[in-house]
Structures are given as structure tokens and as C-alpha cells.
């Protein structure tokens, strides 16, 4: 017979720690690894220094077009056309209105983090779109009306994306629930809608919204072009959200539905309090992925004559004073898209962490 005493945990040996150990273990552990490490460094060397030269060191930031001597990026073009990139043809004197909306949105995101009271949260969620709409389009409270034809640039991109995201989310959830419904009519309508929309390119839907839809209305009823595009994008996006949410719903064990039922919760109570919070949590990465895709797809509104931030490159570089500045324009717009999409993906990660109750 033998009895053993419990041993204390010991620190790892020092040869397993430190920078040198990390380098050897991760970058130069064998010949293949060392080769790819060196190759990677060489590729970075080929790309990064010239890029920094072009974008910063050799770039022209001030002065006029005629004074350009350096060979790098001519950012004066962006600075000159900055307002157009941001607001399109929105009257310059009224730029404070979209700016204020942006400020409100930032305040909203911060407030959502700190306000605990549910009713205040819901009130904010409902009020923000209304206030934003009134501020941007005007027509109420003595604010000068700005027609949607004048909206453009990054502002338009953000509006199209925001409306598409906010409106498609609840619609997508309802469609996903409809697809799982036991009622045959509700189910087949949901399936029919989702499969139809998913089988058609967004461009087609935008064309239909802008060209075909008006044919169904009587003459004289003019339905705003932007509104039609927004409806088209919302319907398109809701079908994708529905499929993403359905994936989340299917991952919820049957026992959760049964537990909700056995406690006496009704269908909507069970869905809203028990099933959806879990299903949406699982779906966050895919939902955000789909929103990022939508954000980039908003550039397609160009083809029905709406000038978003990408269209502004074409427009500003066709100014005879500024011909040949496409590269700067596209690089600038690329950076804008990247910053926004990257922020969205980081935000999704922080939301995921917040809802994680696994440990």
C-alpha cells in the first residue's frame, strides 16, 4: 500500500519564457518556419516603406494645385473637396445639421452603455431616428427643407446603411420566426420571400425599386427615389438577416423551448425572453458580417443616380480643375470604408464579450 501527499504547483522553468524564447519558438523553430519568416519580412519591406513614402513623406498637404513639386500623394485634392465627399450637395450653411446627427449618434452609443433603465433605452432607440430624420431633411420646426436629391457623400452612405441595418434587423427576426412557424401560410410566405430575395442580385432589386415600382403607381404620385432605394435595400437585407438568425435559432436546444413552455411562458414571451437572446448572441458574428457586407453594398445606389461617397470620387475628379486625381480619391474612400468596417467588426467582438456567460 502507498499513500501520496498532494504537490504544490511549481513555476514553469525560466528557459520557457522571455523574448528570445518566443522568437525561437514561433518564428525560427525550424528551416521551413525560418524561411517563411524571412519571406514575410521581405514582402513587408517591399510594400510598406514605399507606401509610407507616398502617403506621408512625399505627400503634399498644403498649397495650391500649381505648387505641387513632390512625387507623393496630393492630399490637397481631398482637402479641397472634403465637404463634397462628406455631404454631397447638401447646402454648406446647413452642414451643422448632419454634424449634429453624428454627434447625437455618438452620444447615443455612449448612453446605451451607461443607462440601465430599460424604458429610457427604448425611448432613446425610438427617438433617435425621428430626430435624425427631422434634422437632416428639415421641413419641421422652421428648419429649411433639403431635398433628398441634395443628399450625398459619406452622409448618404451612412444613412442608407443605417436605415438598411436598423429596419432590416427586426424584419429579419420576424421572417426567421415565420420560417420556423407551425402555421403553413406564415411559413410558406416567409420561405417564399426569403428564397426569392436571396435568389436575386441587389442591383436588380434597386432597379426594380427605382424603375419598375413607379409603374404601379398612378401618375402624379411621386415616391422619393431615396425612399424607394431604402425600401429595396431593407427588404434585401432582411432576407439575409432572417437566414442568419434562423441558424442561431436552430442551435438552441429543444429543452430551452420546453422549459419556457413548461413554465407557462407564451410564444412571444418565450421567444423574446428565452430563445432570441440566446439565438442572437450566437448569431452576432454573422449578423455583423452581413451588416458589413451591406455597408459595402450601399455603393450600388450609384446605379440609380444617388451619389454616395464612392460616386463622389467620379464626380469630383470630373471637375476640369481636378482631372487625374482618381488615385487620391479612391485611396481616401478606401480608408473611409476600411475604418468603418473595421470598427463594426471590433464593436461586434466587444458585444460578444459582453454577452458571454460561459464562465
Amino acid at each position, binding site marked *: 500500500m502507498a499513500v501520496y501527499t498532494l504537490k504544490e504547483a511549481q513555476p514553469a522553468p525560466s528557459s520557457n519564457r522571455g523574448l528570445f524564447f518566443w522568437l525561437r519558438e514561433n518564428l525560427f523553430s525550424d528551416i521551413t518556419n525560418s524561411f517563411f519568416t524571412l519571406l514575410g519580412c521581405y514582402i513587408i519591406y517591399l510594400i510598406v516603406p514605399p507606401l509610407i513614402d507616398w502617403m506621408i513623406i512625399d505627400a503634399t498637404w498644403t498649397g495650391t494645385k500649381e505648387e505641387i513639386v513632390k512625387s507623393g500623394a496630393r492630399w490637397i485634392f481631398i482637402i479641397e473637396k472634403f465637404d463634397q465627399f462628406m455631404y454631397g450637395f447638401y447646402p454648406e450653411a446647413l452642414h451643422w445639421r448632419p454634424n449634429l446627427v453624428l454627434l447625437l449618434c455618438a452620444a447615443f452609443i455612449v448612453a446605451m452603455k451607461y443607462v440601465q433603465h430599460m424604458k429610457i433605452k427604448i425611448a432613446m432607440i425610438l427617438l433617435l431616428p425621428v430626430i435624425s430624420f427631422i434634422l437632416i431633411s428639415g421641413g419641421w420646426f422652421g428648419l429649411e427643407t433639403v431635398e433628398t436629391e441634395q443628399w450625398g457623400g459619406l452622409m448618404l452612405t451612412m444613412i442608407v446603411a443605417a436605415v438598411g441595418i436598423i429596419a432590416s434587423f427586426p424584419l429579419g427576426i420576424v421572417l426567421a420566426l415565420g420560417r420556423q412557424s407551425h402555421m403553413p401560410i406564415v411559413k410558406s410566405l416567409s420561405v417564399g420571400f426569403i428564397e426569392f430575395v436571396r435568389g436575386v442580385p441587389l442591383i436588380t432589386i434597386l432597379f426594380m425599386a427605382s424603375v419598375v415600382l413607379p409603374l404601379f403607381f398612378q401618375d402624379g404620385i411621386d415616391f422619393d427615389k431615396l425612399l424607394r432605394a431604402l425600401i429595396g435595400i431593407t427588404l434585401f437585407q432582411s432576407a439575409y438577416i432572417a437566414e442568419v438568425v434562423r441558424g442561431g435559432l436552430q442551435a438552441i436546444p429543444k429543452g430551452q423551448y420546453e422549459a419556457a413552455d413548461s413554465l*407557462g411562458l407564451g410564444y412571444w414571451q418565450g421567444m423574446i425572453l428565452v430563445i432570441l437572446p440566446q439565438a442572437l448572441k450566437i448569431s452576432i458574428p454573422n449578423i455583423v458580417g452581413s451588416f458589413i457586407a451591406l455597408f459595402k453594398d450601399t455603393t450600388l445606389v450609384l446605379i440609380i443616380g444617388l451619389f454616395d461617397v464612392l460616386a463622389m470620387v467620379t464626380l469630383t475628379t470630373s471637375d476640369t480643375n481636378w482631372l487625374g486625381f482618381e488615385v487620391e480619391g479612391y485611396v481616401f474612400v478606401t480608408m473611409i470604408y476600411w475604418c468603418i468596417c473595421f470598427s463594426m467588426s471590433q464593436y461586434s467582438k466587444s458585444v460578444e464579450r459582453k454577452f458571454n456567460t460561459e*464562465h
Partner: protein
Amino acid sequence: MSAQENMITMHKVNKWYGDFHVLKDINLTIKKGEKVVICGPSGSGKSTTIRCLNHLEKFQKGTITINGTELTDDIKVVRHIRAEVGMVFQHFNLFPHLSVLENLLLAPTWVHKKPRKEAIKTAMYYLERVKIADQADKYPNQLSGGQQQRVAIARCLCINPHIMLFDEPTSALDPEMVSEVLDVMVELADEGITMICVTHEMGFAKKVADRVIFMDAGQIIEENEPHEFFDNPQSDRLKIFLDQILSH
């Protein structure tokens, strides 16, 4: 005996899954405060039987009467019955996105519309009873299986049911946690709540049950008080079953 004292009456209950006849003419009467243990081989219809009692499963023929109300598909009747009948599941089925306390508050505040403060008081009382009040703010996944099942029992008790159904409550537990759950169930039994328990814990059946029921192939084969049931089984099928589960 007056009909009022019958908590549950199942009369010729039949159920089919498609063409498969899972329950055949189940007749069962359970008196107020009675503890019944149902056992039987897997697929014998024992879980299906108790799941019919709170309408998690529909049945096609026969009648079920619970505390004087006949169970129908009418949503109001179903909700009324579910307020009377609590169910504890094999896999606990706690809501992982809610803390232990929130799990207990859900039905009282949303279904029974109790003020939150009162619901918290009740919830803490029952958590105290299942000896887990110190974990109220944790999430289910942070607890052991035995703790989770005790929370599930407390969650049921919060709706103040007349009847508790247990569907193999210890089958998913590690062996060393079985007794903490059974202890809570024994305590509950002593307090006079009507209890139906599907289980293979024969020790529990001997100690607590007023009656033990053996089911096989969708029928009740034999029922008896525990002493007779285990020491003097009548049917061959029960003899074989008892041999198998008691042989190790």
C-alpha cells in the same frame, strides 16, 4: 374517496408518433399528495406519459384531468395547467443567458405578473431551501450539474405548483452529485406536494414512493406499493427488468 381528492386522472390516454403507437390506453389516477415513481426500459413511454400531463406532448385519444380541469389544446387551458404543474428535466434546461436568480424570476414576473420585489423574496426563499442561495448571481454554466438541477427544482417551486413532474432528474448527473438532488426531492416529498418521478433510482423509490409503476411498450404493466413491487414482482417483464437494474 371523493373525486376532488384526485389530483391527476388519465383515462384511456393514447398517443401516436405518426404510425407508432407510443401510449396504449394509459389509465392512471393520482391522489393529492401522492408520490408516484414510474420506471421501465428506455422507449417504454414513461417520459411521454408525464410530458402529456403538462401538454409538452399532445395525445390523440382519451382524457386527462388535472386538479379538476380537463386538459385540452385550448391555449388558455394549457396555460392554466402549466401554472399548476412544474417540471424538472433530465438536462436541467436552465436558461444560460440569465443568472440563477433571473431564471427563477422569469415565470413569476412575466407569467404570474408578481411584483419584482415579492418575486425576489420568493426566489431567495426557494434557493435557500435547495441550499444554493449563495450562488444566486452566478450563471448556470458556472455551476455543477447537481447545483444546476437544484436551481431547476427551485425554479419550478417559484410558480407554486400543486404537482411536480420529474423526468429522470438524476440521469445526467455525475455519480457524486446524485444524492444532493435526491435529498432535495425527499424533503419536497415530505412536505406533501404531489409528485410523479420518472427515475431509475430504486433507493429513492423505496424510500419515498407511495406507489411504483412499471411501464413497457407504451403500457402500464404493473403497479404496486414499493415493498411489494420490489420484493414480489408479478409479471415476468418486471422480474427481468428488476434483475437487470439491480444486478450490479
